[in-house]
């Protein structure tokens, strides 16, 4: 390996004084890369490239490590710094701050990732060491072309947009509004409340869901700092942290909110009954003019246009006739609102897995197979059966009930993740069925995941009540009897894995604990807001452990199930956490934007527009008049996509200019590193 060879293309003119700092990261790097040798090599062989000092240290990110750098800057007059350590995602800020503390412009510090890109992905020590050297060489060449940059400061608009009026969004809204700042809460349904409003009881304490939720809903509805926009959807988001411009479509309610008193006479008189597929989960009916439930906030109804007789035939108008304050406005149009906000919280929630997809469980074909959401409505005193647990015929109380866990979850044919809430929800159902009907209850599970405070205790309680647990993923639910005792029943066929035998268990009712899925349009939502989401469609947090409610886009936060399946306490915690992050930002009053961003050299731009659709942050606009593209510096996040895409080389990035990139590549190429032999 010709690792010590550096071809001297052009000697250093002596202007750059570069310090190279190689981190052991304990054994994370030093276990694979010979860091001592790397540092010695850099000091010796990169000297003519401007390196005046090279050091290795156990933990460069520790305060002692940082002090080393600061001391060298002051004493040796370093004007460039290379830190060869972890990914810049983790510690770029740390080292930039250290440089700034020593009086060096922080953008003259460059990190070389020899952990994520070297030691963690290679096993051959010699080859890894050589690669680390090559990367440092590239870093040195690059940093020579760095120029001091100054961050841009933008003021923060203290208003916040929250999308989604479920429990997570409600929590965020109240936290921020109570702190004295304005909140726009946008909800696409006619009322806030989300899924929690549909539930009967909440695990493990069995609090009445409505009793704990509705006070918060009322607070939102009456809060002076909250503008509640229900029956509304966000259509467009422009701008950047501190100053977003959001376009919201406020769908025509066909009801004048100023005049409506929420008396409910219109709903009473409306002759058109419609199956309520949203709030009643398809199990109950509502009218064509409706509020989803009695405690709805706001309690103004909406007219369901596609189902309203007036819009179909031009007659009826029963609602209008009976409305005393004359609040029905048949020709009301959608309104487009423009909101100016500084921060955004997305709390758009989840969709229930469509259990009809698992045809072997018979939902949609066998009447007495129910989904979890249907059951919530059956248990609910305000639901279609006034809380009576009955079969699909509307009257028969089941004598035996089978509850199936993991429906659509932990299954590579559907969703490969655990939906988190189903175990506890199933245990709750077991308890409620037992309490309401006295029926024999079976729970069919793969593993019981009851992992939080008081959850396992609830499992114990359900065991004590005599629920029969069968460990096994149910193979099928059938209505085809094989023996007399199965006639007229639903037969649950399952391997009882703890006894290793196949069992066929006849029951009257089957409950499918369907999993949680991202909203059908979550990927579209992510695009609208310029954030990323997983392949499944869950919104991606900035860091899974250390920054769970922020996103990679500054000023946009996520909370609740939109980020991944979670229960009510976790959703509330995230809602509050996102609010705290927003309040922190608001209190900063202004925010410094990274100066790393792209810009267009207008003379070179051919107007081909190839870059136009590529920007994940909507920072690119095209000027039809001049036929050139422009990049909004405040929106640009410096990802470099457009720079790479531009066929004319007309886009360049501050902090990643073509000069810098070419120099880095040259630096990499100077060292002839042999490829690591591929493991057989």
């Amino acid at each position, binding site marked *: 390996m010709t690792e010590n060879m550096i071809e001297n293309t052009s000697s250093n003119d002596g202007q750059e004084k570069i310090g190279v700092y190689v981190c052991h990261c304990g054994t994370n790097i030093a276990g694979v890369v010979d860091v001592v040798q790397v540092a010695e090599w850099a000091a010796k062989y990169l000297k003519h490239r401007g390196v005046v000092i090279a050091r290795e240290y156990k933990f460069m990110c520790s305060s002692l490590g940082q002090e080393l750098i600061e001391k060298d800057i002051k004493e040796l007059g370093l004007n460039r710094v290379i830190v060869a350590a972890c990914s810049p995602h983790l510690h770029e800020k740390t080292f930039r701050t250290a440089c700034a503390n020593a009086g060096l412009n922080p953008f003259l510090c460059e990190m070389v990732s020899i952990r994520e890109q070297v030691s963690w992905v290679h096993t051959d020590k010699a080859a890894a060491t050589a690669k680390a050297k090559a990367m440092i060489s590239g870093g040195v060449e690059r940093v020579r072309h760095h120029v001091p940059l100054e961050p841009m400061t933008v003021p923060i608009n203290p208003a916040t947009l929250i999308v989604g009026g479920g429990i997570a969004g409600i929590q965020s809204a109240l936290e921020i509004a109570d702190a004295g700042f304005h909140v726009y809460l946008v909800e696409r349904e006619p009322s806030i409340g989300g899924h929690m409003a549909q539930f009967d009881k909440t695990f493990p304490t069995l609090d009445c869901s409505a009793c704990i939720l509705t006070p918060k809903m009322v607070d939102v509805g009456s809060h002076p700092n909250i503008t509640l926009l229900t029956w509304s959807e966000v259509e467009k988001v422009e701008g950047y942290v501190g100053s977003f411009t959001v376009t919201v479509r406020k769908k025509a309610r066909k009801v004048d909110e100023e005049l409506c008193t929420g008396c409910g006479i219109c709903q009473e008189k409306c002759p058109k009954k419609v199956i309520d597929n949203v709030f009643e989960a398809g199990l109950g009916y509502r009218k064509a003019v409706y509020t989803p439930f009695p405690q709805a906030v706001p309690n103004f109804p909406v007219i369901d246009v596609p189902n309203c007789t007036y819009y179909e035939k031009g007659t009826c108008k029963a609602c209008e006739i009976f409305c005393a304050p004359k609040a029905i406005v048949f020709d009301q149009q959608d309104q487009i609102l423009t909101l100016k906000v500084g921060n955004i919280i997305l709390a758009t929630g989840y969709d229930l897995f469509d259990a009809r997809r698992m045809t072997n469980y018979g939902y949609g074909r066998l009447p007495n197979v129910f989904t979890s959401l249907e059951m919530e409505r059956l248990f609910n005193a305000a639901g279609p059966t006034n809380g009576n647990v009955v079969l699909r015929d509307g009257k028969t109380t089941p004598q035996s009930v089978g509850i199936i866990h993991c429906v659509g979850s932990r299954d590579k044919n559907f969703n490969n993740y655990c939906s988190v809430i189903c175990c506890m929800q199933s245990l709750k159902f077991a308890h409620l069925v037992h309490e309401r009907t006295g029926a024999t209850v079976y729970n069919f599970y*793969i593993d019981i995941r009851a992992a939080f405070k008081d959850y396992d205790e609830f499992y114990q309680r359900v065991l004590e009540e005599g629920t029969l647990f069968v460990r*096994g993923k149910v*193979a*099928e639910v059938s209505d085809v009897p094989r023996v007399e005792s199965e006639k007229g029943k639903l037969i649950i*066929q*399952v*391997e009882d*894995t703890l006894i290793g035998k*196949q069992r066929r268990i006849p029951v009257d009712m089957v409950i499918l604990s369907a999993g949680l899925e991202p909203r059908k349009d979550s990927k579209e939502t992510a695009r609208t807001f310029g954030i990323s989401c997983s392949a499944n469609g869950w919104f991606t947090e900035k860091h899974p452990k250390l920054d769970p409610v922020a996103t990679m886009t500054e000023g946009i936060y996520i909370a609740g199930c939109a980020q991944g399946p979670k229960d009510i306490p976790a959703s509330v915690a995230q809602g509050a956490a996102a609010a705290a992050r927003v309040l922190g930002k608001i209190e900063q009053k202004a925010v410094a934007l990274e100066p790393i961003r792209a810009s267009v050299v207008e003379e070179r731009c051919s107007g081909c527009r190839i870059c136009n659709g590529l920007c994940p942050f909507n920072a690119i606009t095209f000027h039809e008049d001049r036929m050139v593209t422009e990049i909004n510096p405040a929106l640009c996040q410096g990802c470099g996509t457009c720079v790479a895409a531009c066929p004319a080389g007309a886009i360049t990035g501050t902090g990643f200019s073509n000069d810098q990139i070419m120099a880095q590549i040259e630096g990499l190429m100077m060292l002839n590193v042999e490829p690591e032999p591929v493991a057989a």
Partner: protein
Amino acid sequence: MTEALTISSTPVSDPKQIEDLTLLKEVASRTAGVSNLEMCIQCGTCGGSCPSAVEMEDTPRRLFAMLRAGMREEALKSNTPWICVSCYHCVVRCPQNIHIPDVMYTLKTMAVDAKLVQDSTAPDFSQTFVDMVEDYGRSFEIGLASRHYLKHFPLRLTNMVPMGMGMLSKKRMNLTPTRIKNMKQLKAILKRAKELEAEQ
């Protein structure tokens, strides 16, 4: 203090078991395609779906657990693979996409190789079928049926007279075998295939 640092190791009673922890891998590598056998989460979808599970000594899931535990002899003695009807209900439902019937085929071949088959009815049937195919290139029902039933179900023959006569009179069974033209080619292919199989 020293006590806390001592790790007590449970002695393994049968040292052979340690060696056999490779069993699962061996089965997976001998199975056609990517079996995903190591991905089993023991959920029992297979055992629940199986239409002939009642006849099985071990459900497929349990058999896979035995493979993990390195219980070579017990696993290869199990009648389960021989009772599998290849209906593929388990495959399409398996949350881990395990190719269960193909694993069953592998276990059959391993059981025959290891001479651990307990009931020869099924392996004899397969072998007789394969013999005919290797001789003629085609299956030969009447030859197969007479040889198999005489050996394993002599008492059923009287019950089967109506069916047999019906099949013969309706010419749904040929009295003589059909042979493919290029038997030489097929034999050469199978000979080479058997050598390759033995080399593994």
